[in-house]
Every structure is written in structure tokens, then in C-alpha cells.
């Protein structure tokens, strides 16, 4: 593992309560750490939420971030993912006049498909590793996407 700015993904399990998310993001911004993506949702049937944070940093920085996160009272667990399955999602809107069967075929290669068709536009959805989402979005350029949204990453240890 390199020591300098590598991409890292951590999961933070927190009690669902008011302002817990701002406690976490404040900690990052207050210490000059950068968040590249962040995903939050409740963990079903518990009082906890899982926050998945992708960030850049050295091993030492990560150690500090982890310890500091752990100090926050509503934080139950913090761990950095090493051997994980990581997914991101993207939704892309196209004009209905684009080559939809091509688009659909490419989407399938990235765990996705066209999920909505309206009068003038269609929406495709893919869910894959962040790097592969980059590739997918690159290859979509030629179909003149009208709008792209991309989620933060979610990850689970293998």
C-alpha cells in the first residue's frame, strides 16, 4: 500500500440522531480532510445508519481520521475497507432519438439497463465499481447524455 494520497473507503456506523451527519462532515472539513463521496442510509431494523465515505489520504491521515471519528459520541464503529465489494450508481438521461439498443447493450455490461422511457427521453441506470462507472460515462459521451447523476459509493467487506 502506498503511503501517500491513495483513495480509501471507510464505513462509519452511527446512531440515527439529529446532526450526526454534520458532526462527521465537520470533522473532515475542520481538519482539512477531503471527502470525495459520501453515502448515508439507515441500516434496516436497527437504530443505526451506515455512512460510506470515500476519501484521499495517507495511512497516517486515515489512522487519525478513524480515531477522531471514533471519538464522536454517536459513532459505534469505524472501519477502513481493504478487501471490499464497492459499488456506485449512475443515472443518465438521453434523447429518445439516440441509438437505444446500443445504449442498452453497453449498460448491460455495467450491471444496468434502460429503466425509464418517456415521450422524449429515456433514463439508463448502471451500478458498478467507481472506476468502471468512469469508463461507462466516458463511453456514453458519444450518445450526447442530457443529464448525469452519480451516487456516492457503498461498500461491504468481502
Amino acid at each position, binding site marked *: 500500500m502506498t503511503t501517500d494520497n491513495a483513495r480509501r473507503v471507510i464505513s462509519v456506523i452511527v446512531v440515527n440522531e*439529529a446532526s450526526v451527519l454534520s458532526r462527521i462532515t465537520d470533522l473532515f472539513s475542520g481538519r482539512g480532510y477531503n471527502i470525495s463521496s459520501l453515502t448515508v442510509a439507515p441500516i434496516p431494523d436497527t437504530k443505526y445508519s451506515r455512512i460510506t465515505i470515500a476519501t484521499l489520504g495517507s495511512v497516517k491521515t486515515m489512522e*487519525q481520521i478513524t*480515531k477522531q471519528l471514533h471519538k*464522536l*459520541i*454517536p459513532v459505534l464503529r469505524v472501519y477502513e475497507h481493504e478487501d471490499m465489494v464497492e459499488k456506485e450508481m449512475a443515472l443518465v438521461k438521453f434523447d429518445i432519438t439516440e441509438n437505444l439498443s446500443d445504449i442498452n447493450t453497453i449498460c448491460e455490461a455495467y450491471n444496468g439497463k434502460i429503466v425509464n422511457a418517456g415521450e422524449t427521453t429515456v433514463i439508463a441506470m448502471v451500478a458498478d465499481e467507481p472506476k468502471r462507472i468512469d469508463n461507462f460515462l466516458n463511453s456514453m459521451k458519444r450518445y450526447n447524455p442530457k443529464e448525469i447523476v452519480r451516487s456516492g459509493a457503498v461498500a461491504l467487506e468481502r
Partner: protein
Amino acid sequence: MQISGAQMVIEALIAEGVDTVFGYPGGAIMNVYDEIYKQDGFQHILTRHEQAAVHAAEGYSKASGKVGVAMITSGPGFTNAVTGLADAYMDSIPLVVISGQVPMSLIGTDAFQEIDAVGISRSCTKHNYLVTDAKDLPRVLKEAFYIASSGRPGPVHVDIPKDVTAQIEEFNYDIELDLETYKPNVKGNPRQIKKAMEAIASAKRPLFYLGGGVINSNAAYDVRELVNKTQIPAVETFMARGTLSHDDKYLVGMLGMHGSYASNMAMSETDLIIALGARFDDRVTGKLSEFAKNAGVIHVDIDPASISKLVNADFPIVGDVKNVVNEMLAQADSIDGSRYESWRETIENFDALHPLTFHEDSERIKPQWVIQRVGELLGDDANISTDVGQHQMWTAQFYPFSRPRQFASSGGLGTMGFGFPAAMGVKSAAPEKVSVNFTGDGSILMNVQELMTAVEKKLPVINIILNNNFLGMVRQWQTLFYDKRHSETDLSMQPDFVKLAEAFGGVGYRVSTKEEFDAALKDAVEKNVVAFIDVVVERFENVLPMVPAGGSLFNMMLLEKKEDK
């Protein structure tokens, strides 16, 4: 029992054993103040500024070891208190600060005296709460006291909207706390402790590095025993003054930017640092890459985030200092103190080479003399607080501290204006001791309105103003590093401090000789009054030794020998 949120606050404070609350009322907290009026479970001390209320609570906590409590109103009341919260946060002082907030229906509307208090306090508290339902109040208050005082202590802020203090609900304070996510590790891993003891036994030049955490965990007397049993020399941080008594033969002195030559050299030459409740602050380590280059590190701290933050620990031990030190004591027989004989000699030689001292002057009183003199006259009978600046460093260097909790000063944040209100808090916690605040002609004006509080509440704090007509510490840096351009630090224009004290009903003295000083101090102590002793001292005295910011610990600017002068 069905009571209002405001009554719940009172009941909870009493149940927590609080005997003194410092505060300042206002619209949003009036329901609570109305209940304060009706009760006699604790005394309320009305300060004349919210910042002072929090500093007083800090001083109270420092002297007593208990949780300090301050109460304030919303908006400007709260923002005035923020400096105190930040100060307590940096120095790990357990506080519960309760603020009023505008009613829930007005939150977020830019209502009169509304401010996002929990948003502001988030970064300078250990934890904070906005209570939106009086049903939560008992639990929140109980958690607040527990969180403030356990683990690494710190301030907890509880913000309560006005309608919540009016809400009537069932009150039961007999609750089991269920803080699943907050479980400080107090024990210290036995295997790590054993390994650390082995490392100590085989070290040639071990050195105790004692920090404020020792005092916070009430471990000072255990540490004294450990030091004396192992015969290992010890240096103290500014925050740890009083851990060892000034006459303890293993105490080398204070280290850091204004530490003694012997302490800083010992730290530079040690082969094993035994850090107890210390956090390797930059004012202590100097240039990190040159800090204790050949030393292994044992680091004991309750806060895992402090360990290996700046200096890598070879033996990290997360736990309460008191527990860990007692575990170490149980194994201390394996350590043969005579092994370190020559190391102790080396340190004694350092000390003989450049002892911590100052040059007397026939014309003017030297500030260091004043501090030493108070030490001679009052010694253990006084509790000492300071403001921030040169006088603060001289106090840490020259006052003969003999016990923990004798010294209250703003270390981490360095807050001018801390000293006087803190001294009032100290006095209210320890009325049997004389409360002395060493201050500067700059600092004292930052919370001078507390003269009124002190006089009214009969908190006879003796403020000794080491008056150099300068913002002395900044002037020192300007002299040394800005080619003597004393930009905006000249305080030649001054109030008449004697009249100022008198105007509030206190007693003032202006002294410029040693005899006058002795007489004034004696008089103030005997009369037991709120006093200003305005001492005319040498204007251009520097605090030495000094490690320039970012310099290496072993490269100190030293006091010139008298014969070199």
C-alpha cells in the same frame, strides 16, 4: 413527578451534586432562572460576562476535580461563552454548559437572539445537544455529566429551547445510561503494560514526561510514588505543574518552549520517553523531526486519538492514567533505580550548567522575583491562576507548586482574560486557600468587569498585575524576531488600577519596591479582600530559556551569564 423542563434542570443539577453554578440570565433561559430563584440546593454566582461564567466554571473544576457548570441565555449570551467552551475543550476540562434557545417554533427563523448554538459549539465541545422535548431532558442531562467527566474529560453543551423549559413532563432521574457507542477504554492492556515495564527496566536513560492528563485523572500521587520507586527523572508539561512537588528530587522541571535547559536537554538525550497523559503538543516538542531522536516511546493516554498523532509510540497504552500507573506500580519491583544513577548525574550537570534563574536589578522589580516571593510567602497556602503572556510562563517556571490542582491556567487555547474569573471559580471551590491570579496589564482588562462579581460574592481574589506597560509576550517576539518593531504592543496608556479596584469596592495597591510589595500582599491576605496589586516591573524582561517556534528543543536561547553581560 410531573414538573417543567426548567424544574428538571434544577433537579438534575442537585442530583449531580452541583453546589455552584456560574451564569448570566436572559430571555430564553428565564424559566430556568425562575426556578433557580425558588431553590436552595446550590448557589448561583452571577458573573458580569458569560465568558467569565465559563472560565469561572473551569477554575472551579480545576480546583475541585468536579464538573463545572455554567448557565447562559441564547444568542449573544451563548456567543460570549464560546471562548470559554473552546478553552475548556483544549484543556480537557469537564464542564456542563446549559444555554437557553428561542422556542422551537421560532428556530430557523432568525428570531430575536437566535443563533445556531449547537452548530457553533460542535467543534469546541466533546459533545452537544439540542433538546427538542422535555421528555429527553433527564437522560440528556445525565449523559452530559457522564460524558463531560469520563474518558478524556471535556465540555458538554446542552441547548434548551424556551418552550421545552416550560413543557411539563414526568421526571425521573433514576435512569441507567445506555451509551452503546461511548465506552471509554480505561483499563490499559496488561500485556502492553508488561512490555512497557520491561522496556523501562532495560533502558539506560528513561524519562517520565508528565502531562495534564495525570492531574485530570487524579493520578498525581500515584505518579509521585511511581517516580520515587523507580528513581527515574521526570519532566512536566505546563499543564502538569504540581504533579510532582517542586522539591521532589526526581523532578527536573518544566519542558518545552519556555522549559528549563535541563528538562529540554533531558528530553533530547533520553532513550525512553514514558509519556503519561501528555499529548506531545508543539509548544513542548519544538521541531518534531529533531525531537528526542533516539528515544523509544511509551505513551499512556485515555484518548486513542492522542497516541501516535505526532510522535510514533512503540508502546501505545490506551487507558486511564491512574489505572495504568497503578498497574505499573504493582510491577515496579522489577526496576532497579540505581541503574539510572549516571543518567541522573548527567541531568544534574545540565541543571548546574544553565539553572533556571534570572538577574536581579537594583532599579526595578523583576517579575520573576514577585512570583518567587509569593511562593516564599504563601507557597502551599495559595491556589494560583494566571492570564496569558510572559507572566504566565514565569509563573509556571518560578512558582514552587507543591500539589496537583494548585495551578489553573489556559494552556491549549492561551486565552487572555482567563485568570481572574478562573481564580473566582477556584476560590469558590477552595475557600480555605488564598486565591492569587498573576496577570498582565493587557490580560487583566479582558475580564476586568469581574471585579464586581468578586466583590459582591466575597470571592477575595488577589490579582497581581505584573505591569510592564506592554503586551509583553508579543513585545518579546517582536524584539527577538521582528527587529524590535513593537507594533501596537505598547500599553503606556493605562487606567489607574488602584482607583479601578476601588471603584468596584475592592482594594488597590501600586508598588514599585520589594518592601512595598511585601506589605501590600500581607495587607491583602490579612484583609481578605478583592485586590489589585499593580507592580511596576522591568519593561523589557524576556522569558528565557526560549525555544523559538519550530526550532529544536536542544537549541534554546538562554539567559546570558551575568559576567557576560
